[in-house]
């Protein structure tokens, strides 16, 4: 792509993502209502779709208050970090053949770098707010995200072994024969659980568990700063859905009666809905259960997955193939 076309693509993607995140609030409320025998917001515009924009306008007009005892610069920068890192994460997601901002050969590592950086947002927010609930919430988040990141990475080693590359377009191409969710089913389950914990969506939203921590790390936030946290959360949800699709469900691949980008978007939308269904259906675990599950169950399973995948690959492929 030429530089102009690339810039145009970046701008379009940026606006599309922001609009999608705003719209997702409406989708989430409608779907939750649908699963709870209600209607949800259905008044503003057709099917209530303008509700999302009404919410955006409202949150932009809200008073933006910084608590007097807060550490101001850190307090202000924290919500920006999560939104920026999540947006940057989309730079490596291939929407369709050739339709990717940065086709890095270490794309997967870039993705982990971005999710890793977003931990700072939460820790900064909790520390700078100067509020007990915020601090406890951010401590929890830091512990949760760091431990789930460990085997989020490990769960993908199987995929990398099979594809032989960290480049996402190569990984998608390697799935032409069979989507990786079949040979890497264990990896998929582990990655999915870890992705929920990473974006601290329900049921793993202990960092902001209302019943014990008020609102966790964003207790003191209001107005658009709070909105940015929300934006980051929804972007994270979309990013991890897109990653699941790219890594396990063949990315843009699909029967040729639809263009590749439509396949990609459809699959991503399916996983976003799955995220919402999780929120509607499951209660949150206790914090020690969450951590115990991570270290005692998911970590061994992820390690086992690597060993088994590696053994099978070594046993079935010729040494030249493995070496390449």
């Amino acid at each position, binding site marked *: 792509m030429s530089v102009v076309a690339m810039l145009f693509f970046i701008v379009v993607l940026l606006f599309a993502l922001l609009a999608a995140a705003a719209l997702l609030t409406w989708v989430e409320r409608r779907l939750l209502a649908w*699963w709870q025998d*209600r*209607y949800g917001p259905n008044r503003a515009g057709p099917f209530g779709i303008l509700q999302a924009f009404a919410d955006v306008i409202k949150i932009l007009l809200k008073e933006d208050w910084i608590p007097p005892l807060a550490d101001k610069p850190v307090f202000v920068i924290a919500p920006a970090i999560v939104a920026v890192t999540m947006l940057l994460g989309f730079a490596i997601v291939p929407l369709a053949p050739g339709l990717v901002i940065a086709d890095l050969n270490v794309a997967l590592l870039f993705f982990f770098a971005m999710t890793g950086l977003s931990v700072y947002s939460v820790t900064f927010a909790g520390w700078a707010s100067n509020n007990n609930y915020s601090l406890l919430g951010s401590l929890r988040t830091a512990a949760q995200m760091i431990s789930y990141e460990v085997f989020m990475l490990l769960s993908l080693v199987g995929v990398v072994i099979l594809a032989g590359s960290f480049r996402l377009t190569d990984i998608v191409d390697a799935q032409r024969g069979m989507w990786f969710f079949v040979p890497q089913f264990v990896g998929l389950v582990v990655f999915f659980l870890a992705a929920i914990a990473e974006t601290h969506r329900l049921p793993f939203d202990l960092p902001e568990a209302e019943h014990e921590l008020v609102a966790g790390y964003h207790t003191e936030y209001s107005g658009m700063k709070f909105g940015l946290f929300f934006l980051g959360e929804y972007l994270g949800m979309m990013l991890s859905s897109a990653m699941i699709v790219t890594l396990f469900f063949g990315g843009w691949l699909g029967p040729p009666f639809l263009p590749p980008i439509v396949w990609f978007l459809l699959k991503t939308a399916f996983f976003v809905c799955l995220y919402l269904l999780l929120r509607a*259906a*499951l209660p949150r675990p206790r914090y020690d259960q969450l951590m115990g*599950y991570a270290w005692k169950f998911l970590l061994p399973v992820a390690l086992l997955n690597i060993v088994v995948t590696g053994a099978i690959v070594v046993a079935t492929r010729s040494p030249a193939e493995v070496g390449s």
Partner: protein
Amino acid sequence: MIDERSIAAAKRAQTSERTRSESWLWSQVAVLLSQIRSMAEVFLHGFRRRETIQYPEEKPYLAPRFRGRIVLTRDPDGNERCVACYLCAVACPVDCISLQKTEDETGRWYPEWFRINFSRCIYCGLCEEACPTYAIQLTPDFEMSEYDRRNMVYEKEHLLISGTGKYPGYSFYRVAGRAIGGKDKGEAENEAPPVDVRGLMP
């Protein structure tokens, strides 16, 4: 010395250790499965009947004794029932009724003004229970929202209706023993003429 008992105990401990770790693994799997099941059940809820009543278009059912907007009723002759006894104002737990008693030339009491602040009223119905004349009554109407809070204060002309409300035939002065213009002592319904307590005749 290793006797049989200690060997058996050691074996028991070993097996229980193993079953414990096995059952822990199974419980983890069972947890996963049960969560998938509850997800499926919640998903199926999408195809149930909606519980929501789409309010402005679709009206909810209101029971006949639903307690809503308060009215002041009139007796069958068309006169105000309220005799300004203040009992409702006393009974009201949130003190939202206020009124001022006055009298006409025949000695009949009535409220000079009568005011209910509906932004405070909790629709408990205690005023209705306290009222000796059935004057104050709650009706099944709740659609009284306002943009300005001050408009929630209803004056007597807003409260007074032309009918008798829930108690059609009742008129307080017709049954009360009080002398009032055109009706002397002993002339009320079911009332005996007054006894001359100083007279000697039985």
